[in-house]
């Protein structure tokens, strides 16, 4: 506190004050046209210095008049302090305008294009990218379209889509961590600093925050719009088609990274710079003034997605959103670390938690849907049911997202107390599945209920043999899909895989038995020999019956089972071979033993219609899935 000079009498009110006051009054924008038309900052540097000095002088006068001792010149003192206060106000009003002006002149929406740096670094490992090779491969891009939507159109004007189609991984790279940019050139920052300092020491803190917030807020809003962040209500989002939402989510993920790591972080830095050394409460207040609205708007979208109706197709985009937010959370904590930003940090954490819950809920929904899938129309030809394909594709995708889901799925599938003794749900013992993660248990459970559902569907086939074929086909498909994915196989485990393999083999056996037992019955020995005779007496009529029955049955089987389908070529071959192995030797031996008896009678061709070769080639028609001519090819005449 410096000793003031000559303040005790009003007549010798310091000269410096008068000079300073003159300058202040000259620049009073409410008083003169000229003052309104020109700005101090942005003009002559000397003017700036003079003005600031004048302000400082006035402020000094203010503190000196306020600590003046009481004297008889009370009235004069008041009028002095009135003068001073008036000058302060005029100065502050002017500085406020200058401050606003500097901000506006150096404020332009951030060039969003420049934020998507096209560098050629490999993409960071994400749950989607299987190949970490160079960017721009269409493979990588396709992998992104997990949800099934079409590719984005390349729109030359839209920076996000441009980055998306040409270098999707590049944009991830440039926004993988906080990166502040200079929103305002350093000289301007210095000017703003010098104004802010004075406004605050004069007690005009609130005005400073107001003006700062309003200009910067507009800038952030404009950048927001360029990033394509839309304002949608929760109601709007519930009404949109999921495919449309998927695109928006993808866009949001990209935009959010830019917003948090670049936009908001840079605004924060700017506040810290301008209000450097004045106290943290002020730069926090300005920062929140600037970004609170936009931040809320940003997170409201993710929140709306996290609370939307759960259905299976949403799983993977929800997981993408979850992962993106999880990745972003530490940076959100840093950027929004002040007390006044509590609500934003809390909201982000809540959204993350809701997304996790949504993923869990969707998994449950999926399981219920698989269990209850009600279609009763049997798939023609006993081939693979669309449900099987859908489910196996879905769980393959789940295994792609294993990294995330393993953390999220924490409880075992609900097969227990609620449903015990319920005939509409399968049982599953977990005892033998020790040491498996909950996620793996869910996957196994899904396969169990899929089979359960398929069993139910198989009962709609009138032909038992076809029912078995159906089960065989579908379980085999399941096995193939598991074998085809290492992650899936690892989670399901070889024990259960063996069980499944056994299952389809058994179905194959059951199918065969159901079809061929009665056919091969025709070729048995018993009943053909005339009883009581030592000689090789054979009942010709019985024999003829046998041949006729066999032919009819075989023809029927041939006609029918040619239209049945085993899509897997290897399995098809195996089954045919297995059939041949039983059929051909039996027929050959039957022919061998009994053909002479037929050929010695009338019209042997009516009974011995087919040679062994005929049968062999007929078997090749089986399970092709399309009808063949009714007449079997006859090789031998």
């Amino acid at each position, binding site marked *: 506190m410096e000793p003031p000079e000559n303040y005790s009498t009003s007549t010798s009110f310091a000269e410096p004050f008068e000079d300073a006051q003159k300058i202040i009054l000259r620049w009073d*924008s*409410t008083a003169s046209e000229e003052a*309104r*038309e*020109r*700005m101090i900052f942005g003009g002559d540097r000397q003017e700036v210095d003079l003005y600031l000095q004048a302000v400082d002088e006035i402020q000094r006068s203010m503190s000196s008049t306020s600590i003046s001792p009481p004297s008889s010149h009370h009235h004069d003192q*008041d*009028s002095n*302090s*009135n003068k*001073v*206060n*008036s000058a302060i*106000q*005029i100065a*502050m*009003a002017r500085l*406020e*305008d200058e401050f*606003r*002006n500097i901000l*506006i002149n150096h404020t*332009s929406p951030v060039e969003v294009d420049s934020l998507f740096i096209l560098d050629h670094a490999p993409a960071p490992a994400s749950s989607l990218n299987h190949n970490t090779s160079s960017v721009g491969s269409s493979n990588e891009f396709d992998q992104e379209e997990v949800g099934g939507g079409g590719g984005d159109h390349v729109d030359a004007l839209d920076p996000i889509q441009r980055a998306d189609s040409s270098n999707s991984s590049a944009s991830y790279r440039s926004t993988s961590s906080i990166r502040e940019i200079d929103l305002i050139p350093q000289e301007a920052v210095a000017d703003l600093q010098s104004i802010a300092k004075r406004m605050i020491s004069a007690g*005009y803190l*609130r*005005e400073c925050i*107001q003006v700062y*917030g*309003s*200009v910067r*807020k*507009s800038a952030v*809003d*404009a950048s927001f719009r360029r990033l394509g962040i839309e*304002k*949608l*209500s*929760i*109601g*709007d989002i*519930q009404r949109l088609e999921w495919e449309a939402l998927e695109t928006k989510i993808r866009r949001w993920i990209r935009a959010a990274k830019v917003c948090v790591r670049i936009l908001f972080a840079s605004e924060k830095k700017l506040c810290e710079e301008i209000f450097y050394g004045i106290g943290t409460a002020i730069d926090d207040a300005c920062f929140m*003034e600037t970004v609170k*609205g936009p931040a*809320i*708007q940003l997170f*409201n979208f993710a929140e709306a997605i996290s*609370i939307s*109706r*759960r259905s299976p197709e949403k799983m993977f985009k929800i997981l993408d959103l979850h992962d993106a937010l999880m990745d972003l959370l530490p940076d959100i904590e840093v950027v929004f670390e002040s007390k006044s930003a509590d*609500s934003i940090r809390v909201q982000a*954490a*809540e959204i993350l*938690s*809701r997304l996790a819950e949504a993923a869990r*809920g969707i998994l*449950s*929904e999926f399981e*219920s849907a698989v269990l*209850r899938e009600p279609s009763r129309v049997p798939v023609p030809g006993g081939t693979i049911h669309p449900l099987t394909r859908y489910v196996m594709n879905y769980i393959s995708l789940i295994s792609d997202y294993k990294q995330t889901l393993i953390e999220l799925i924490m409880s075992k599938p609900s097969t227990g107390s*609620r449903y015990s003794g319920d005939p509409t749900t399968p049982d599953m013992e977990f005892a033998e599945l020790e040491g498996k993660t909950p996620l793996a248990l869910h996957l196994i459970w899904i396969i169990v209920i899929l089979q359960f559902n398929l069993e139910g569907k198989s009962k709609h086939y009138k032909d038992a043999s076809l029912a078995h074929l159906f089960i065989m086909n579908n379980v085999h498909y399941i096995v193939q899909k598991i074998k085809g994915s290492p992650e899936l196989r690892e989670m399901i485990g070889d024990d259960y895989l063996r069980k499944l393999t056994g299952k389809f083999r058994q179905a194959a056996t059951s199918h065969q038995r159901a079809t061929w037992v009665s056919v091969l019955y025709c070729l048995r020995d018993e009943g053909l020999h005339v009883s009581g005779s030592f000689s090789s007496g054979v009942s010709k009529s019985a024999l003829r019956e046998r041949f006729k029955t066999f032919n009819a049955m075989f023809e029927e089987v041939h006609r029918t089972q040619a239209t049945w389908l085993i899509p897997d070529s290897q399995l098809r071959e195996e089954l045919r071979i297995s059939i041949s192995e039983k059929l051909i030797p039996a027929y050959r031996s039957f022919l061998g033993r009994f053909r002479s008896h037929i050929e010695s009678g009338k019209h042997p061709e009516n009974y011995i219609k087919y040679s062994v070769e005929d049968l062999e080639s007929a078997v090749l028609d089986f399970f092709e899935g399309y009808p063949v001519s009714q007449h079997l090819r006859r090789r031998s005449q």
Partner: protein
Amino acid sequence: MPATEHQPSFLGRISIRRNQVTAMDGNHEQELEDLELFQRHIGDRFAELLSPPFSGESFLSISWLRKLVDVLLCCEAEFKAVLIMGRDPSQISKPPLDRSLSDYMERAVKVLDICNAVSGGVDSIRQCQKLAEIIVSALEQKPIGDGQVKRAKKALSALMSALAIDDKESNHPRYAERTWSFGRRGNNSGGNHKDRANHGSFRSLSMVVAKNWSAAKQIQAMSSNLAVPRGGESTGLVQPVYIMSNVMVFVMWALVAAIPCQERSGLLTHFQIPKQFGWAHSIIGMQEKIGEEWKKKEKKGSAGLLEEMQRMEKLGQSLIEFADGFQFPAEDEKVEEAAAQVAELAEICRRMEEGLLPLQQQIREVFHRIVRSRTEVQSVHVGR
């Protein structure tokens, strides 16, 4: 514990209870009793809002609104409990309950949006608070001089614009231009700057909500299908759902009336709760009161019905008069009068400082509860 941590589904508890159900008749009586109690509690809670210390001056004040939201939260909690009491979950997918629940779900989405809009509105009230604080800070200094008065005048005019902007701003294309354009502003007058900047900040906050979203329309839609349940539907959940829906709509409407948020013109002022329902008496009374106030406000064109904002407006006008007629040194009488008003304004700011954030937090809690119920009902409602 964060609000969203995984909690056991309340509807899950229904199926557990199912196994414990005894005779149907015994259960029915229990149901009726619970319903009785539920209705009585609702009636009591809302009656509190019309009696001291909440009646009289503090009607529609921040603390009154906080109590209102608190009442809503209590009712909602009891509603959940009622739903658990030995109800048969298979009823949920049958008419008429399935219909009334699906209406409830639709309404829930609107409630969520209204919560967000109202919360944004609270932020805009905070803007007014900050302007008022400037005024207080300026006029609190003694002796009041020209400088302080000019400073106060600037803030006063901004405050009055902020209080008047309210819903109308969304219809002003002018503002759009002024806030979005950049570039050299060398020849704009200082006065203009201030208005534009302040309008800009006020407007932008409310733009958190979607462009075509209208609070008035949401309320309208919510109340349009509040069908009184017919006599035969006395069992099951239809009654409680009807009651809770009415409670919800009323509270949301009161919040929207009090707090500026986007597009309230055409806000309903009359609802149709039949007077025969005992639990509804206080609610009907409050509806009438608020409806009256709203009609008055629409005529005057002033901002939200929040008591503190109304008072702020009056004080602001009075202080503007003082400021306009000010000449240094001012008469003691006038100064004293102004000082009293400034003190009152300071008190309002203090109340806002104290109460706005907790109010937002309570509204957020409503948001969480509604999200949770909605998710749980959805999970039982599968197969639609």
